């Protein structure tokens, strides 16, 4: 970790492009966070039908710097708020997918098909508990909340009976454990196979198509879209984390850690994870750039994102109705490109130092 930090510090000193890219990204994030407090002349959804397709103009007291679109909405405000939308969607989603991918990938790589052993009784009891958790913990409370908003006692009873079921199941497990030897037998869960099959299923259709189809089943809201993106984006990072874990598992220092009896958790957290940080950082920035592009593509197509949300894609889509309004494409498009490029440059340099260190 220290080494990675030092490398980045050295890059910062030596490469101008890296410094520029990082500065741009920092400024971009700052802008997106502070935007609601900035004194802007127009808000992104202010409609002004007197000024439709106004060309960009710098002077004047109430001019639109970047022009206006088909409804007279200010392109400047839309570009800035589009940046905010892009970062507010892609950053949390990228962080969450990195975490989920890391957990699932390292689990698959570390345990393999035979490393994860549990007793029969545990498997049976956890499956039953999971069914009850979904029914009493999710299905009943959600349904009750939707159907009978004033009747909260049903939700309390549901959660209480869930706890009761858990206690009964725990007692049952103890009883079975003591009475029957059959339940003692350990089973190896093929964690690796399970996770690989899930990844293969989720990637069997191109991501854009999968998300478009899923988005048509759901109401277009930002949280829904974030969930959809998170559920489909983790596969790449999980694959990478799994491959890195498999590589590290075969290294001599890891073997010796195992042989001197280091615990499993210490092996993963102290010895494996720090060595995976570099590749993970790269896949994180890569996912971030990909999500930025993806978000604007979806809003350009007008699917999955509410129409009232200002975004680059929404502004750019206006050009399909009036090809002469070049400013609709030029300004948001430039911002999108610059952001993606800055991430790409950062990525490129970090990848270069990691490869250099390997040699």
């Amino acid at each position, binding site marked *: 970790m220290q080494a990675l930090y030092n490398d980045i510090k050295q890059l910062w000193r030596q490469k101008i492009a890296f410094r520029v890219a990082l500065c741009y990204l920092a400024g971009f994030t700052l802008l997106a966070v502070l935007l609601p407090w900035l004194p802007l002349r127009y808000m992104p959804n202010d409609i002004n039908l007197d000024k439709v397709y106004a060309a960009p103009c710098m002077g004047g007291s109430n001019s639109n710097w970047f022009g206006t679109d088909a409804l007279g909405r200010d392109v400047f405000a839309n570009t800035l708020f589009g940046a905010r939308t892009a970062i507010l969607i892609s950053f949390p989603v990228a962080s969450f997918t990195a975490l989920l991918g890391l957990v699932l990938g390292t689990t698959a790589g570390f345990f393999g098909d035979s490393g994860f052993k549990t007793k029969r009784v545990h498997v049976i009891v956890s499956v039953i508990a999971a*069914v009850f958790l979904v*029914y*009493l913990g999710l*299905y*009943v409370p959600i*349904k*009750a909340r939707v*159907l*009978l908003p*004033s*009747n909260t*006692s*049903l939700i309390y*009873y*549901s959660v209480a*009976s869930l706890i009761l079921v858990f206690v009964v199941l725990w007692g049952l497990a103890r009883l079975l454990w003591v009475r029957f030897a059959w339940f003692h037998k350990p089973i190896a869960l093929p964690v690796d196979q399970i996770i690989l*099959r899930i990844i*293969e*299923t*989720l*990637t*069997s*259709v*191109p*991501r*854009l*198509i*999968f998300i*478009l*189809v*899923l*988005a*048509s*089943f*759901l*109401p277009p809201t930002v949280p829904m879209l974030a969930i959809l993106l998170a559920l489909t984006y983790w596969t790449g990072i999980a694959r990478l984390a799994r491959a890195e874990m498999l590589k590290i598992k075969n290294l001599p220092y890891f073997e010796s850690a195992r042989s001197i009896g280091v615990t499993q958790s210490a092996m993963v957290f102290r010895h494996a994870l720090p060595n995976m940080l570099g590749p993970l950082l790269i896949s994180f920035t890569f996912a971030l*750039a990909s999500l930025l*592009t993806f978000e*604007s*593509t979806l809003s*350009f*197509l*007008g*699917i999955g994102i509410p129409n009232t949300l200002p975004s680059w*894609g929404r502004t*750019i889509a206006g*050009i*399909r109705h009036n*090809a*002469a309004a*070049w400013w609709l*494409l030029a300004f948001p*498009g430039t911002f*999108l*490109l610059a952001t*993606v*490029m800055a991430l*790409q440059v950062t990525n*490129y340099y970090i990848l270069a130092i990691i490869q250099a260190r390997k040699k």
Partner: protein
Amino acid sequence: MVALLFKRLFHGLVALWLIATLVFLLSRLLPGSSGSENILLANDTFYTGSSSSSRELAYRAYLRRTGLDKPTFYFTIGTSVEPDTLHTIYPEADRLLLQKLAWQFGSWPDVVKFFTAYKALHQNLTQLQEPKLLAHLQSLHRSVDPDVLLPASQRLRKILNGQHGSVELEQATRKLITKQQPYNALLPQIRWHGSQNQYHQWLTEAVQGNLGNSYRDSGAVTGHIGQAISTTWWILLLSMTLTTLLAVELSILFVRKRGAKWRRAILPFLFFTDRIPLFILALLLLILFASPDFLQLFPVYGMGTYIPTGQTWLQNALNMLPFMVLPIICLVLVNLPYVTNQFYSSLADVSEADYIRTAKAKGLSEGKIIRQHMLRNALFPIITLLSDFLPTLVAGVVVIETIFAIPGVGRLLIESVLARDYPVLVGVVLVVALFKVMSHFISDLLYGLADPRIRQIT
């Protein structure tokens, strides 16, 4: 080798089945996604003014025709207070009221008695044409709180002097409240439906090649998709061939001794185009080369308006060509950087091998070494690469076809998403996934044919 090949094919088919099942079940299970609202809205314009009973009949007929009256899956796990025929009740407001009542009071027979009494009174009052009383009655529709229901029904009986079935309604309400078992909703019930369910029906027909009918125009889904593929196919094939050829030639140029200056000139450009979002590139090209405001070199939209019949496929292809130039340029430009990079690094790896040095020592020319000795070995990993890169191409086709208004699979997908035409969506997912499985299988097969070492692996 053969065993490995079939194992991978089997895994691919399992993934295909899982994804299709997932999408199918989600399309049927998620709230508000049954697609029936669309049909009823469309029918409303024809049947406006028709009585609610005839609309109910139309709804039932629609459910029977589309198979939506059957349960979704082999079994359902739900609360024991709801009957499994709840979704056939029409109109939707009544269905929702029944569901609320069931969850609140937990005893279905009493709920049904209350509801029939309510409906009977409603019918009588409608015949009497007393809007004031009807409004009073409808207040029962708004809340399921026992403290609201009972006083409301008592008031109704007083106003009506116990006529028109208001006594029955009050009794039913009283019974509903006294016999309530409010926490019955917590009890789960598993119902087994056997093979008479939507999923089973859909799966057996899909295996036989019938993907059902579109919600929008009732046409066969396979017909829609087949027509769309015949257009998309050309774009895919041409852009893939062009990308591969260009990438091979560029990487050969880079790996040559004299190619260093080319490499320095072209690689940064490729690095730049690699991250340009496809829709921005496509719009740029569209505005620069196909709009009357700048250069109009190519036709803007579509695939040609009029295609005379009786032409050979070659003439057809020639007709379509001008419309395809810009879309294909977009797809090639966007995919070229990645493919070229892979080809180049693969070639560069091979160029350090011993047998290349031997070939150089024998005095072979550089071009001959590259084309005859390096290329064949460097191309192995590329077979897999190409099958991986097909999905990216298919995703790109969605964007390209929307922007250039080409009637292909991508446009079909977008239109179906906007119209919530689920049978077509499930069909497109199935076809695209099948396409991927097949391309992987073929690439595995080719890999085995090209590399004798692979054939030894079991």
